[in-house]
């Protein structure tokens, strides 16, 4: 209250007290005024609306990549019908290609947004690189060969009603391929496309460790995939969250059974809608945790697991054929007696 220039009219015990009160009023009042101006600016739209989450880093990245056509652009006529059939197989594989699926998974479980999502092995990027040489089977692969591999390993066709993938030239391949072809409308052929496949994570200095991964899993994955990794089902027994290991998951021959592949997928896509929430280390560890559990056998195995590991898994980041916690990994899980929920 008391101004230095003017002596106080009353004797004061503590002249500093008044000064403090004045400063406080100015500070609080000024703060209010600033807040009011900012609120006004926000209301008037001068500031960008953060609430709507317009510009997350990941969305910018996604927006800069190839954009496949929307469903509304599916043409009419026989070609459009085939695209829709292919899409139905892609989204609900165990029902629409039921003869060849031996687990509860669908293509869209790992290729998110119906095969559209960049960094989730999108179909528009895969379509343009086939036919190509693959070291997995040491030959030129057509897209049909590649999809056959998906059924054989990721969809665990060995436990399907027919006991194998669709035979060559089957309509399932044709419908899936025309769906992919349509998703790749306007995509360049023979060029590496940004967002293709899953991102490759560099190995961390600490390596990967299933024990650390178990903690990551409990905190970030168990809510959806279940504490036991067997996924979750709705009241009708329909799978909502896919099984990550055990008899109803992908088998040991699947790309996702490799720790590095799973780590890349997880880092870019999990938890759903929260890309890059996990650190590289966490992604490696949780991928190791998931892929150190037993799952259906590798259908290529003819002799022992160790022989199959040498022949088919040489140089891979995999637990197949390794001994972990006193247990040989890769022996497989028994064929489920029912395809319903456990």
């Amino acid at each position, binding site marked *: *209250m008391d101004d230095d220039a003017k002596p106080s009219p009353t004797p004061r015990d503590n002249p500093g007290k*008044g000064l403090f009160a004045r400063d406080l009023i100015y500070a609080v*009042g000024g703060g209010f005024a600033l807040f009011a101006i900012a609120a006004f600016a926000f209301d008037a739209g001068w500031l960008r609306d953060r609430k709507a989450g317009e510009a997350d880093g990941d969305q910018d990245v996604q927006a800069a990549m190839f954009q496949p056509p929307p469903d509304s652009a599916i043409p009419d006529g026989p070609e459009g019908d085939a695209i829709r059939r292919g899409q139905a197989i892609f989204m609900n594989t165990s029902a629409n290609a039921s003869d060849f699926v031996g687990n509860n998974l669908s293509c869209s479980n790992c290729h998110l*947004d119906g095969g559209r999502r960049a960094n989730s092995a999108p179909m528009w990027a895969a379509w343009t690189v086939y036919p190509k040489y693959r070291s997995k089977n040491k030959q030129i692969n057509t897209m049909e060969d590649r999809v056959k591999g998906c059924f054989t390993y990721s969809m665990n066709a060995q436990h399907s009603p027919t006991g194998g993938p669709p035979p060559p030239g089957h309509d399932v391949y044709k419908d899936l391929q025309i769906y992919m072809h349509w998703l790749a409308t306007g995509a360049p052929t023979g060029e590496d496309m940004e967002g293709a496949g899953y991102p490759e994570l560099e190995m961390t200095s600490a390596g990967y460790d299933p024990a650390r991964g178990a903690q990551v899993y409990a905190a970030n994955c168990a*809510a*959806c995939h279940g504490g036991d990794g067997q996924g979750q089902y709705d009241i009708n027994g329909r799978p909502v969250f896919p099984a990550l290991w055990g008899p109803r998951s992908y088998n040991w021959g699947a790309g996702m059974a490799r720790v590095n592949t799973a780590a890349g997928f997880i880092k870019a896509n999990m*938890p*759903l809608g929260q890309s890059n929430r996990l650190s590289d280390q966490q992604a490696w560890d949780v991928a190791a945790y998931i892929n150190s559990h037993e799952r259906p056998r590798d259908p290529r195995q003819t002799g022992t697991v160790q022989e199959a590991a040498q022949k088919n898994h040489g140089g891979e980041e995999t637990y197949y054929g390794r001994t972990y916690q006193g247990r040989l990994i890769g022996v497989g899980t028994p064929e489920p007696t029912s395809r319903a929920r456990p």
Partner: protein
Amino acid sequence: MIRRKRTQAAPPDGPEETFEPYEEFRRIPLPVYWIAIALAIWGAVTLWDNAQAVGVGRQERAEQIEETPAAALNSGAQIFEARCSTCHQPNAVGVRSAIPPLAGSRFVAADPAVVVQILLHGIDGPIDVGGRTFDAHMPSFASVLSDAELARVATHVRQTWGGDRQEITAAFVRVQRARFAGRGAWRGGEELARVVDPALGPQPSAGPAVISAFADPAVLRLVNQGRGEAWACSSCHGAAGQGGANIPRLAGLPEGYIVKQLQDYVTGRRRNESMQTVAGALTDAERRGLARYYSGLRAPSTAKPELGGDVSRGEQLALYGDWSRNLPACFSCHGPSGFGVAPGFPSLAAQHPAYTASQLAAWVGGGRNNSDVQLMNEVARNLSDADRRAVADYLATLPPVPAVTQERR
């Protein structure tokens, strides 16, 4: 106000006679005027702006609600796509070992009353379709589709997959609606074959009837009369747990989910004054008992779109999400048709739009912070205000979850 504070800030600390009201002679410093003027302008602009926005919003909503009856006049094929295809699939092949196919199904080709009765009451028990047994729970559409809509979708299903050209009329549906009014779901194919159409042939039996009356009198007393600070649940949530406006529908929510919410009110991870009082007054056993009670309740839907949201945009978000905004589909976690996945993911179907929208706002505003892995915080943050209203209104059009008690599950 500021002047009064100044007076209080310098009370006379000496004896009365030395007191001088010196403030009277001091001018209010100029910055204080500036601040006061700035605040006054802000207040006036905000009030004006708000009034405008409310007016515009009201008008928009009125326009959109007027459009709704026209949108409801859609074809059987459109109703099928919107109402049936999430479970039975667009090509009606169903889902292996969970949802029966319609294509080639005896139920679809049987007497027209069969399809209509299934649509009206739902199914809750095993049926045999094409030599395979499905033990599933289909909801009742009686409270969400009109007679005319039911007639159109039933005709579409029978013409497309049953090979019958005959048209089912709204009058026929009306008669069928009155025929077994008030009954629950059909208890599997065996009951349908016995009561509606013997041509359905031998059907698996649903087993002995489960006593559906909820027996625990202490829990029923809490629901209907309450006890002290634990007010009667039904006083807000309705006699059948159907809720209303911004009070949630509880009927059919997963048991574990309800228990967790009650606990979270107590720990403050979820905030609501009334519910904090009530939940705090309940014992653990009472919370479990109430959760069990409500999770097994089936009540017709009383929810209707009321926020003027774009229902087709809401449907898009619920079924497919919008990955350009990093939004996964609602149903990718809350289950097909929004029936929920016990225990963590609540059913959303037939929930009241005002409640759904208020929760989406609470995830952002901090009033609710009890989602695993912050899944809902992220989703709600990426939804615009219009999208929240859209998805809330869409969910209100869905048939209520065919709740299953633990005994029946």
